[in-house]
């Protein structure tokens, strides 16, 4: 088993057009590292020095990780991770 990561349109250039990839890790940070290892460039788009980028939303089993510990959020086999860019502007 592995963890499914659903990738938004704007990041599919890094996944060869795939809408979802599978990866492994015990925390979201490890999971993102693993996704980045096979799809280089993804991490840079998701994370900055303060954690998940302000206008990127990441959900583990439908919970926004901002409320569950950010990059330290625990993940395990069978979880579903969804990445969605914020829809926002001025």
């Amino acid at each position: 088993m592995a963890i499914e990561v659903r990738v938004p349109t704007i990041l599919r250039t890094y996944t060869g057009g795939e809408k979802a990839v599978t990866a492994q890790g015990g925390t979201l940070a490890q999971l993102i590292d693993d996704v980045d290892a096979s799809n280089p460039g993804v991490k840079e788009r998701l994370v900055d020095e303060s954690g998940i980028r302000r206008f990127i939303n990441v959900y583990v089993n439908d919970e926004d990780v901002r409320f569950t510990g950010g990059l330290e959020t625990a993940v395990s086999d069978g979880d579903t991770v969804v990445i969605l860019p914020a829809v926002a502007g001025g």
Partner: protein
Amino acid sequence: MLIIEASIRDAIVAHARRDHPDEACGVVAGPAGSDRPTRFVPMRNAAQSPTFYEFDSADLLRLYQEMDDRDEEPIVIYHSHTATEAYPSRTDIGLAQEPGSHYVLVSTAEGAHEDGPVAFRSFRIVDGEVTEEDVTVVSSSAEVDDAAAPKR
């Protein structure tokens, strides 16, 4: 070019008027790959601001799950400007992350009241580049096919 039904255009304008002086926002979903905006989905502006809009993160997830289940895409992403023109701001351009969508801008700066003039314009925003496009308003979905057909 954006082709949109009058009833949906009117619903976007009504939403913008209703929420003035805060910015209103939402999407018009449509079948994936169709370029036809058919399902009007007004969203809550979590920022509740006259100068900023953002979909609430839980609402955003629900919206995308719903579109996924229906095999839809956000064909149109709309929001209003309430004191400035209907043109993407620097913030709009910096945060635009759906290169396949039509970004519709409505301005209630001149006509927030009923029957006041409300500008309605559409743009593509790709890699920081803004391109305005024509908007064709049709009265029904049958007419959409005519408007989309190649000119003879």
